């Protein structure tokens, strides 16, 4: 087009574009920034064009290809204007349907946006919670703009600020507006932009030239708002730069942009050319005598060049090493000329301020931090993308309201802001309003706006190590404290993350940090220790876990974890070893390895909650290995072949007597190991049968009694004495035992008392406590349940508060389903319904149990809580329930269910089983000198199981409240070691070691074809007893893997233990042996 050469012409040109009659044909907006293209936006675009061409829809619909609209996660999508209907994560094959619907002014609901945990469909962009709670001053503009078509920018009102400024190029006025708007640098440090401009304008070193630089060297990993704005709306930055140029009297601008952003470079080059063609850039702009042109300088991959003095050197074509300040760039910048450097987002705000006026602008944000800020909300969060909110918004609002909380079941524990110069902010501080000073105060910085969300699967030591590694590579090397200091910090952190750290290391890190801060010249070094110091400040426990306990809770640190399955197992089962042995068909050896650490091998092979599988690496992007089923394959093989059915008792005991009270998994495990050590153990059991919850609480269809007997017989063969029908408090006391010569006592009496609902009418006939019902059903006692049975799992929030949320709920939902399925089998009711107050997403019961209940015809009413019991003549008649919805995120990291007013409804019932949770019965322990928590659990040192009374140890459910079997077994093992230390006069102390397999097994060689099959192979599923066959009887539902299935499943194992230094050494030796042999 022809160059515009006067202000009048420009005004009428702009007016003519803005006055064009509104076009009401529907427009398909397809966002194709780098992120959109990575998600397949180009394919969507082509498919759309193809459909329009083939169906001659040119008149009926048009297409606009834009930059990113912020919600990268739902890309690729089609947004249909004018209604802004949005079709997220669209597949090319659905494009024709969508266009057809748009043309017909219809919508296709099933293709529209949904949050995973509710059924609501969000049709328009504005309705989606991610967008709804934002203030998108800058980002909303992208929707109307195809970045390579400058007319789009005019049409959207662009260059009106330029028009204002060029018509009245009064530097003082421009600078005073920016000052009045209190605009501060969006690149991190938050320096007042107006002041910087004023200094640059007043600076006169006689060099004759001045420069404006747009700093788009967005080096902070995890932040990408500058890319977004430059890619999606480059003219906005050009407009901001011209205004800056006029304000300070510069004639030339540079956009310094990272070479990692090819699309941003491309779009800004196009935009600059178009602006030049129109006459907005160049010499004598619109004949006003003002010269201003822009050049693009591509960075070459150096993080430090984001620092302004380094950036200047880089523009000059030199190594990007920072310089001492002052002189500041506004006095002495590029080639010695005054240079004003502003961040992309800062410049994007300039036209906004000029357009609406400073008075309007300061209405958003808070004093000292006006306007909006864009954050890149990424990492372990449900809704990820760019979020623009007023400064002063709390972290909680950004993370939980806009971000929708955690991405999976893991709880969010911190956010990281400010990139490598920033720090972490723990979840406890999420009520903090975000501004420059508040973040500084808690040890982080605003930075360019990266906000990386971290959950329990993120290791803070690893994050600190990640940043120091980044910084030691990026340190320019000029200051030795930064160069050597970051390196040393990285070495120390590597040691800690590999399990070689000491507590002195932690002290050293804390000493090193301030030194590096004080003695470095530029921002990189001055902030480099932040990630380390902040993680130590808020997550010291994690460091100590790594150093002392050799634990990495997040299972990230490879050298500590070895294989996540073995690491996660509470009893340190050598999973990778026995799985590898099964793959090599060495079943007896596999069984031996299992038995080595687990006296309840057969039981746990059926009912373990297998935390190992949740952490299995094969489960990332595929199915986790069926570890428990493989264990069952080995134990079943042992039972069939009569292997390891008994153990050798010690030849001669050491004569020291130990009493174990309670014969559940915890008590028996402790007895087993103590007996093996040579102690004379007596087990006291209140009931007439042993096994505790295994016998009373777990239904036979899940754990056949003959299987349980195998393990009980094995344990008994270690040579302990067992006294049943012997109740503590009634038949004996602890003091009495000590008097009888028992040198130590292990208490493991479990947690059997069902909690009450705490609602009116609960005491009537027909309402049965869950444990009572289960025990009766399991022992084959007759109880009358009637035709209509209801089971309540999860009570009101009052109960909630009194429990340890997650762990208790695991047990609660397991017993609730067990009770339902047992009831169905033994008393033949007509219908059985479970009432649960959360959703299927939150139900922590094993999936196979929930599915099994469904197959058997048990109904589950989710989001339902009881309100009151309705009685008739003192008997249960019905129960009134209320519907719940999910509200705010609670302390367990899940969304708390809240009642929906007026949604009450009544269900007629013959029996109501209340299975909300259990607590220990401590009535018989009141005078034994022990201490209890407010939940009636006994207080011990979790490291050693020692109670407050010397020689008396405790473990299992009576310590933790209702918990899993494997944790009880683990407690029994720990207690046996502590008791041994106590009785041999050693210090009672837990010993921690790095997780390592007992031996390394040679991996099976695969052909390429076999490997391909294994990579895509699904998990082997056990055959199940059909739901017809399992009704009304107690036959075991799960039928076990076949040999062929087991071998295939075992071969799928990724053998993580071979990836440690030790594992690699083993493989190398193996190769050498082969070469020699």
């Amino acid at each position, binding site marked *: 087009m022809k160059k515009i050469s006067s202000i009048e012409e420009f005004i009428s040109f702009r007016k003519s574009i803005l006055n064009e009659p509104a076009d009401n044909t529907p427009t398909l907006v397809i966002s194709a920034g780098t992120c959109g293209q990575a*998600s397949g936006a180009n394919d969507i675009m*082509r498919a759309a064009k193809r459909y329009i061409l083939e169906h001659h829809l040119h008149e009926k619909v048009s297409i606009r290809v834009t930059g990113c609209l912020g919600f990268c996660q739902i890309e690729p999508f089609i947004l249909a204007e004018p209604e802004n209907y949005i079709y997220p994560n669209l597949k090319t094959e659905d494009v024709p349907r969508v266009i057809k619907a748009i043309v017909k002014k219809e919508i296709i609901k099933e293709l529209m946006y949904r949050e995973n945990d509710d059924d609501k469909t969000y049709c328009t962009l504005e309705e989606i919670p991610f967008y709804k709670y934002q203030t998108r001053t800058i980002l909303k503009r992208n929707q109307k703009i195809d970045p390579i078509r400058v007319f789009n920018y005019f049409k959207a009102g662009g260059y009106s600020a330029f028009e204002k400024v060029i018509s009245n190029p009064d530097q003082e006025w421009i600078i005073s507006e920016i000052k009045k708007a209190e605009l501060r640098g969006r690149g991190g440090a938050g320096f007042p932009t107006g002041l910087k401009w004023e200094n640059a304008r007043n600076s006169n070193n006689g060099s004759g030239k001045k420069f404006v630089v747009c700093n788009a060297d967005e080096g902070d990993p995890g932040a990408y708002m500058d890319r977004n704005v430059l890619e999606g709306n480059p003219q906005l930055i050009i407009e901001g730069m011209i205004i800056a140029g006029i304000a300070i009297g510069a004639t030339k601008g540079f956009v310094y942009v990272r070479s990692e952003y090819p699309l941003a470079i491309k779009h800004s080059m196009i935009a600059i050319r*178009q602006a030049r063609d129109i006459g907005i850039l160049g010499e004598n702009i619109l004949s006003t005598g003002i010269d201003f042109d822009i050049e693009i300088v591509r960075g*070459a991959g150096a993080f430090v060049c984001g620092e302004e003095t380094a950036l200047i050197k880089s523009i000059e074509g030199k190594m990007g090493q920072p310089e001492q300040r002052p002189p500041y760039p506004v006095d002495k910048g590029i080639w010695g000329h005054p240079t004003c450097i502003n961040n992309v987002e800062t410049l994007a705000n300039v036209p906004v301020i000029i357009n609406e006026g400073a008075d309007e602008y300061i209405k958003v944000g808070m004093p000292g931090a006006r306007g909006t800020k864009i954050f*890149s909300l990424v990492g372990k969060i449900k809704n990820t993308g760019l979020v623009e909110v007023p400064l002063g918004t709390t972290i909680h609002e950004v993370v939980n309201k806009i971000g929708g909380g955690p991405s999976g079941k893991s709880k969010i524990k911190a956010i990281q802001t400010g990139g490598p110069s920033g720090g972490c902010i723990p979840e406890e501080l999420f009520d903090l309003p975000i501004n420059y000073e508040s973040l500084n105060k808690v040890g982080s910085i605003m930075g360019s706006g990266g906000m990386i969300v971290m959950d329990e699967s993120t290791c803070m030591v690893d994050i600190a190590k990640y940043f120091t590694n980044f910084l030691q590579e990026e340190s320019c090397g000029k200051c030795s404290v930064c160069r050597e200091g970051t390196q040393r910090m990285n070495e120390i952190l590597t040691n800690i993350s590999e399990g070689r750290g000491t507590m002195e290391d932690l002290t050293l890190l804390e000493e090193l940090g301030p030194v590096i801060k004080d003695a470095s010249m530029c921002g990189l070094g001055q902030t480099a220790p932040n990630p380390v110091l902040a993680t130590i400040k808020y997550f010291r426990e994690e460091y100590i876990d790594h150093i002392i306990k050799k634990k990495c809770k997040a299972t990230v640190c490879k050298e500590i974890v070895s294989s996540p399955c073995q690491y996660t197992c509470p009893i340190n089962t050598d999973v990778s070893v026995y799985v590898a042995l099964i793959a090599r068909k060495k079943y007896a050896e596999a069984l031996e390895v299992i038995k080595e650490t687990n006296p309840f091998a057969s039981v746990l092979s059926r009912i373990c909650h297998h935390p190992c599988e949740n952490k299995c690496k094969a489960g990332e*992007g595929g199915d986790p290995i069926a570890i428990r089923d493989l264990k069952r394959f080995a134990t079943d093989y042992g039972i069939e072949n009569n292997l390891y059915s008994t153990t050798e008792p010690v030849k001669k005991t050491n004569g020291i007597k130990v009493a174990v009270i309670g014969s559940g998994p915890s008590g028996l495990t402790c007895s087993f190991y103590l007996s093996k050590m040579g102690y004379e153990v007596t087990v006291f059991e209140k009931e007439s049968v042993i096994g505790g919850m295994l016998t009373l609480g777990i239904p036979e269809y899940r754990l056949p009694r003959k299987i349980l007997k195998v393990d009980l017989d094995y344990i008994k063969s270690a040579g302990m004495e067992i006294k049943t029908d012997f109740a503590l408090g009634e038949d004996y006391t602890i003091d009495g035992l000590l008097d009888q010569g028992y040198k130590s006592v292990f208490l493991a009496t479990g947690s059997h008392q069902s909690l009450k609902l705490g609602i009116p009418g609960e005491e009537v006939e027909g309402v049965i406590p869950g444990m009572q019902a289960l025990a009766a059903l399991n022992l084959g006692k007759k109880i009358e349940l009637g035709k209509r049975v209801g089971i309540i799992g999860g009570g009101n929030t009052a109960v909630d508060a009194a429990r340890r949320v997650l762990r208790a709920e695991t047990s609660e939902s397991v017993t609730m389903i067990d009770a339902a399925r047992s009831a169905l089998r033994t008393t033949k009711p007509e219908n059985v319904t479970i009432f649960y107050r959360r959703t299927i997403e939150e139900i922590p019961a094993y999936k196979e149990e929930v599915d099994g209940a469904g197959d058997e015809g048990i109904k589950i009413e989710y989001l339902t809580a009881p309100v009151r019991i309705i009685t008739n003549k003192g008997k249960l008649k019905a129960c009134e329930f209320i519907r719940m919805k999910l509200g705010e995120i609670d302390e367990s990291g899940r969304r708390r269910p809240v009642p929906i007013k007026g949604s009450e409804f009544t269900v007629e019932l013959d029996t109501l089983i209340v299975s909300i949770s259990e607590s220990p019965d401590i009535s018989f322990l009141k005078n034994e000198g022990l201490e209890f928590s407010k939940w009636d659990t006994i207080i011990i040192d979790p490291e050693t199981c020692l109670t407050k009374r010397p020689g008396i140890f405790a473990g299992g459910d009576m310590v933790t409240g209702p918990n899993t079997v494997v944790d009880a077994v683990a407690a029994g093992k720990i207690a046996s070691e502590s008791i041994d230390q106590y009785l041999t006069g050693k210090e009672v102390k837990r010993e921690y070691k790095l997780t390592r397999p007992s031996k390394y097994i040679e991996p099976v060689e695969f052909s390429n074809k076999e490997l391909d099959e294994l990579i895509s192979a699904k998990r082997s599923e056990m055959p199940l007893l059909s739901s017809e066959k399992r009704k009304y009887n107690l036959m075991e539902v799960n039928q076990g893997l076949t040999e062929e299935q087991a071998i295939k499943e075992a071969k799928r194992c990724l053998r993580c233990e071979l990836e440690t230094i030790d594992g690699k050494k083993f493989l190398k030796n193996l190769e050498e042996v082969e070469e020699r042999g």
Partner: protein
Amino acid sequence: MYLSEVSTELESIVDASIKKHNKFLIAVLQDIQRHYNYLPEDAIKLVADKLEMPLRDIYGVASFYKAFSFNKKGKHIITACLGTACHVRGGPKIVDAITKELNIKPGETTKDMQFSLETAACLGCCAIGPIVVVDGVYFSNVKPTMVKKIIEQTKSGIEKTDIEKYKHIFPVKVSCPRCNHSLMNTEHLIDNYPCIHITVSFGRKHGWLRLSSLYGSYSIESEHEIPMDTELNCFCPHCHTELTSSFECPICGANMVPLMIRGGGTVHFCPRRGCKGHMLDV
């Protein structure tokens, strides 16, 4: 003089780059790096000669910035992002998987010179990580199990797509915007579809040019060999009008060639050889 003998190819690249970037050292090195995928020793020496700078200064700059490499790179460059967001979402596992698959560590190249593995500090697609970029094509939400497939896809040609299978690759039928005569040639197939036939001239040469009619395909055939970067003058073979417009190529700025699409709409393509600029407006 650091260099006594210079290859003409290298000299022309360096000369053009120095002229284009006004002696700006980093940009010149970037051009060389882009062309060769690394900085050959001769190139550095030649730049020193041409810019009359000491070799140590050039070496200092070239070794300071990560974008430059002194070692020859493979045919395909795989870049795995290790930004913070990609890191917490499993980026290091992706690097491990690539290392396992290709038997090279980051910064290395396979022996057959097919693949180089690199890591980046952040590629700015943080919401959809882990990110892997292969020869400029982005892959999002990458899982370790996807690595093998990505590498195989690269081997067989990353932009090669099966038109029958993919709905987004489609042929267009075009005509001259002036005389409305069809420009389709049904006798010559390119990409298995009738091609677009026009005439072109450049320098003193004049002849035919056939373009693939598939939207998104850059396949061409021509009577004379056209050197890279040549800007062609295009003509309608029927009315002989020059096909040109005021619309500029978004990539290189050349005036684009307009063609009418049968049934409505226009397609513009860039007349510069090697430039992939094109636009289809419906």
